[in-house]
């Protein structure tokens, strides 16, 4: 390990990828929300409006952790506070 800065940058990139991995479960959750909404609409087509509104709110809540991962990855890549401690 000759260059600690290069090592830190490499670790930061790996960490960003790990932070983005939560997108897998977020997508799964959102898919479940959407499929449940489609089932509900198929059973009760007249309740389509309120089901759609609830589905969008549910998707927004399920999306939160995914967006947190994205924000953390962006901070790690472009505004890393820890890199200043190395160089």
């Amino acid at each position: 390990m000759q260059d600690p800065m290069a090592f830190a940058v490499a670790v930061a990139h790996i960490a960003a990828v790990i932070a983005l991995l939560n997108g897998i479960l977020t997508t799964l959750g959102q898919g479940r929300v959407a499929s449940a909404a489609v089932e509900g609409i198929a059973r009760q087509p007249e309740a389509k409006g309120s089901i759609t509104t609830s589905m969008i709110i549910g998707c927004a809540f399920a999306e939160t952790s995914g967006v947190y991962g994205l924000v953390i990855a962006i901070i790690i890549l472009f505004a890393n506070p820890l890199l200043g401690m190395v160089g």
Partner: protein
Amino acid sequence: MDFAIQIFARLHITDNITILITDTQVSTWIVMALLLIFAIIVRISSRNWDASKRPSGLQNVMEMAVDAFEKLFRGNAGDKMAFLTPWFFSLFTFLIFSNIIGIVGIRPPTADWGMTFPLAFSSFLMFNYAGLKSRPKAYLKGIFLEPVFIFAPINLMGEIAKPIAMSFRLFGNVLGGMILLSLIYGIAPLALQFVLPAFLHMYFDLAAGLLQAFIFTMLSIAFVGLASGD
């Protein structure tokens, strides 16, 4: 590539105080100017609107928009809080314009946490006001004494997390779309530079922008409905 907020100008007020003018501020002003011009046009043309005749043109569109939003608000937040509708309608219009302004190539104002957090914080003040006004005792009891008083710190953390989560949701979505588009502009070959980003602009700026504006407004309205208790 630099995705940080660019500084346009520095205004030196005194030796210690410097005001920074960033590019998101400039695009906020552009959005504000567009909205103001639109509002003035609607106001001037509304002098000729006649309630007794059949509506047409701009009157039709405006009546439809206001009517649909009022129905949405009353359906989700109840009739008690209906006087808050203009606030949320202007929030919605502002968010729509600021999310889709990225289509002309400037940085959207909402790709700045300094823009989305104040918006989310004002919504936070709104739904606390709604709760305290419509049912003060039950609202405070719901925070401090539900289910028992030991849970008060957890409930308080949940309340504080609401505006932070809302602001990060909007900020992360808009900033993520913006970064992806800049990367595509960077790696796309010159022949594709005019074709490929157009479709991505359609998704990331128009579709996702409108959806995020709707989600932000809808969540604020739902929280107002939850707080006011109907």
